[in-house]
């Protein structure tokens, strides 16, 4: 369940912000007809896609690009509708994952093992009872974990399993959930993964030798604990603890005749988040708090400075509180008020390029929302006020930011039973300059203004059910235009050592997203479902008339991209297949053959078998990513992994009841 259902709008809804309610057996909804285009992948979809991290299913949404530096541990960030990773917020169980330093979340750090659903919301999620921060980005990728989903059942559920495969990949997991008290449920989940990541790729010279990617190993573990307590008649308090550690090699780009790299990155992240949700007659209340800390250590043991190594350590900490109210003000009218405050500080140690600013940022956001539902028309809008103020240890801090930005969305259905839905939205939003943009030694520029995005979208959706060759069909088409102004870019200034971040960029994007979900008529006990996503994007650099790149397609942006996912089920057997494709792209520079990256098509296959034995459910599976061993690149000279074969086994035990009705 994603937020569409999660933040259900029934007055007595006690569903909570944190883990989702899980209705086993309910069909997944890929496309959600609402004012703001959205797609969502459920747990089954994610499993069938043979995904390892959130970066894998994120590729399946129309209009998205996952910038992937390859390998098991490479940086993977999402760009939605060519706006860049900075404009996509990532929400984990209802609260934002923050990165004020770099402004982009590495999806490769987020495992899917514990994920219940992943939704992509253009503009913002549809519900009003959300923290203000959920309204502050051009798009939101919302990840819901299983949390305490299973804990409401009687007895204890234990789940354990492992996956292993090519390139030294080993991934055991363990989960336990239960209900120790009448009003208290909790769940613990842990996993470990490692891979040496030495996958083969073909040398770039005409020898076409098979080489192995060097320094591409990763080792990580993750522990999550969720607890949920019922408070009073309609209140629920949820708490989540999260710990993640990883240590990985940074292979860098393939440099001719020089395969050596010993640079490493260690991540050590923790957060605790809690939310309390309560319904008092016509008012719903949501109070949330989060403390998060991320620690990054980068080391280059071969750096040629006086210390003989380069070591940089960054610690970012954030305290975050949020309160939201949603009121049924009149019939067909809902009003909401959300207010967030967060305090973020970055400290840096290790010596390179002088002293550091150690910035502190106080941000506050207030959102006023309205939903008006007169009959078949739905109007939704909001005003977001943002105030950001920085303080730094030395040097000049950036000017305070105060802005009010609007969003308005419409949805219309001609008749109550009409299969067609029309929608329209407009949103203006901005992203604040990151700590790196503002304060990084030399490069940083404290005079930066926010980078502004205007989005406009018009679309339609159709859904139907019949007894013909297909049984269920949903599709949507959206045409959108984005304009980015004051885009923050690095430009050489005055002196070549003084590259500087400047508000110089302008981008125009014109695109079409198409998504479809079809269930073919079952043939005996065979069930076949297909999902489609296609995106067309013309993302034009409008920065500088006369420059070589003026009106060219943005670097690394394909005009055409998409995916087709198919799953076939027969009793205990599920076979799934997905194809992902991208048209050609260019690296930065002249759009000539030399800078061209060819288009690609890759296919993943998975076969899984499930069997219930007494109170336990057993699943064995084989999955194969990039089954045809296609060689491709997303970033030039970062070869992507070829075929990886993995197999796995999962065992689920419910001590008090049969697991027949519950998928693992």
């Amino acid at each position, binding site marked *: 369940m994603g937020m569409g259902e999660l933040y259900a709008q029934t007055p007595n809804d006690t569903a909570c912000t944190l883990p989702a309610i899980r209705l086993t057996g309910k069909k997944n909804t890929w496309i959600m007809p609402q004012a703001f285009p959205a797609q969502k992948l459920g747990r089954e979809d994610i499993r069938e896609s043979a995904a390892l991290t959130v970066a894998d299913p994120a590729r399946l949404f129309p209009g998205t690009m996952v910038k992937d530096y390859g390998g098991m541990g490479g940086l993977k960030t999402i760009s939605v509708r060519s706006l860049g990773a900075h404009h996509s917020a990532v929400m984990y169980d209802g609260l934002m994952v923050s990165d004020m330093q770099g402004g982009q979340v590495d999806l490769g750090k987020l495992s899917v093992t514990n994920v219940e659903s992943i939704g992509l919301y253009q503009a913002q999620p549809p519900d009003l009872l959300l923290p203000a921060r959920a309204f502050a980005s051009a798009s939101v990728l919302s990840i819901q974990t299983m949390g305490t989903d299973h804990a409401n059942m009687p007895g204890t559920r234990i789940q354990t399993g492992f996956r292993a495969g090519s390139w030294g990949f080993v991934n055991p997991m363990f989960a336990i959930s239960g209900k120790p008290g009448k009003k208290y449920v909790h769940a613990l989940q842990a996993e470990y993964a490692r891979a040496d990541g030495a996958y083969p790729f073909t040398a770039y010279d005409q020898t076409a030798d098979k080489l192995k990617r060097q320094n591409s190993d990763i080792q990580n573990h993750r522990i999550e604990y969720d607890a949920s307590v019922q408070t009073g008649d309609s209140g629920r308090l949820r708490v989540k603890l999260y710990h993640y550690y990883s240590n990985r090699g940074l292979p860098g780009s393939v440099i001719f*005749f020089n395969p050596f790299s010993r640079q490493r990155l260690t991540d050590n992240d923790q957060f605790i988040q809690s939310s309390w949700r309560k319904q008092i007659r016509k008012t719903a209340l949501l109070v949330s708090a989060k403390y998060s800390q991320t620690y990054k250590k980068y080391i280059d043991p071969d750096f040629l400075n*006086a210390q003989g190594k380069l070591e940089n350590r960054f610690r970012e900490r954030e305290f975050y509180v949020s309160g939201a109210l949603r009121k049924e003000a009149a019939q067909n009218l809902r009003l909401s008020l959300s207010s967030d405050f967060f305090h973020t500080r970055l400290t840096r140690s290790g010596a390179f390029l002088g002293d550091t600013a150690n910035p502190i940022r106080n941000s506050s956001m207030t959102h006023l929302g309205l939903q008006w539902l007169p009959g078949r028309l739905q109007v939704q809008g909001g005003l977001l006020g943002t105030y950001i103020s920085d303080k730094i240890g030395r040097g000049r801090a950036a000017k305070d930011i105060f802005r009010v930005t609007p969003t308005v969305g419409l949805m219309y259905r001609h008749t109550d039973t009409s299969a067609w839905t029309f929608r329209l939205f407009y949103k203006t939003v901005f992203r604040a300059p990151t700590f790196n943009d503002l304060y990084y030694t030399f490069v940083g520029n404290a005079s930066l203004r926010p980078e502004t995005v205007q989005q406009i979208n018009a679309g339609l959706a159709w859904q139907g059910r019949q007894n013909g060759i297909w049984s269920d069909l949903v599709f949507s088409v959206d045409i959108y235009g984005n304009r980015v102004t004051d885009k923050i870019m690095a430009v050489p200034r005055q002196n*070549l050592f003084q590259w500087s971040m400047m508000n110089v960029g302008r981008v125009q994007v014109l695109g079409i997203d198409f998504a479809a979900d079809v269930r073919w008529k079952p043939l005996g006990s065979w069930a076949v479902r297909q999902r489609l996503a296609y995106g067309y994007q013309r993302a034009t650099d409008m920065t500088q008339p006369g420059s*070589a790149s003026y009106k060219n397609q943005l670097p690394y942006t394909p005009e055409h991209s998409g995916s087709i996912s198919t799953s076939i089920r027969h009793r205990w057997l599920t076979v799934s297949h997905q194809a992902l494709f991208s048209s050609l792209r260019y690296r930065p520079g002249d759009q000539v053959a030399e800078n061209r990256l060819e288009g690609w098509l890759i296919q993943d296959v998975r076969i899984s078998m499930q069997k219930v034995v007494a109170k336990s459910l057993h699943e064995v599976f084989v999955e194969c990513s990039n089954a045809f061993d296609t060689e491709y690149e997303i970033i030039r000279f970062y070869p992507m992994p070829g075929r990886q074969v993995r197999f796995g086994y999962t065992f689920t035990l419910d001590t008090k009841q049969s697991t027949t009705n519950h998928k693992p």
Partner: protein
Amino acid sequence: MKQFAFLLMMSIVILFSSCKKDDPSPAGPVLQPKKGIYVLSEGSFGGNNTRLGYYTLSGNSFSPDFFLQQNPGAAGLGDIGNDMVLYGGKLYIVMNVTSQVTVLNAATGALIRRIDFRNGTADKLPRYATAARGKVFVTSYDNTVSVVDTSSLAIVQSIATGANPDGIAAYGDYLYVANSGSFNFPDVDSTVSVINLNTMTEVKKITVGLNPNKIEVSANGDVYVTSYGNFSSVPASVAVINSSDNTLKAQLGAGFAYSHVRMNGDLAYFYNNYGGSGVAKVYNTRTGTVVRNEFVTDGTSIDTPYGINIDEESGEVFVCDAKDFVTAGTVYCFNADGTLKYSFSTAPGINPNKVVFNR
């Protein structure tokens, strides 16, 4: 991950520079007119797109990837060609990020050898080269000058210098090496190592400006050292060393905030390798007077003078324009009087930084 992007960027930035002149010996042989021009385009960091191009004067045509044309099947030169020296019929191309010196037959462009510049698996990061006495001397950021023997084409000796040496010049019995210390920023170096060519050891360090970068020797034996400064409070500067006693002779002062220099006989061409500060200042080293504050006299516009080289035979000045660092560069040939003679694009080569002449 931003910090890596930043580091990469800084590396690129640190690598930005033009280069060293070949052989500053004052009494060279009489030069033949050039037949063609080799152009080194350094490429982009991580792009493996260093290009060696060749411009023939007889056909006025440019072969943008002369190396691949002459060495079909080779993988290219590699990543970030910082410098190129023509000596004894061979081209020595200093490949910084690939960490090699690639040796070609200068007449045919045929690949002779790729010399690894490594300590174990760690890069030495070679930067600039000069040639003298049958050897090619290459500065590397591991605080050494490597001595490459021109017949065995191997590193035969390593001479310790200051931190992260950049520019290098040979004159008389000495090698002069600019110790930049760039990787220790802001605690950069500010010295020139003087190396005795007979003993191959450093005999002296001379303090010059902060973060020294380029070294060139004038016809009368003065060693000109340009320094970057610290990019904020300390501007770029020019120091002059007297090669007869290896002492600091002068600092040129406020009108000479230049990080780069190229010498031709008595004339020094001072420049900064970024846009917006003109192309070059021409200075007479014998009279100590400025010849022209702006070398270009016909209004030709250069975005980014990334490297300047002078044909000693004709006095023509070749300016490599790196434009915006991502799109193809242009090489401009100027007459000695600062008027444009011709120009050609280095496409697809980006960031051209050096030309040498095939005679």
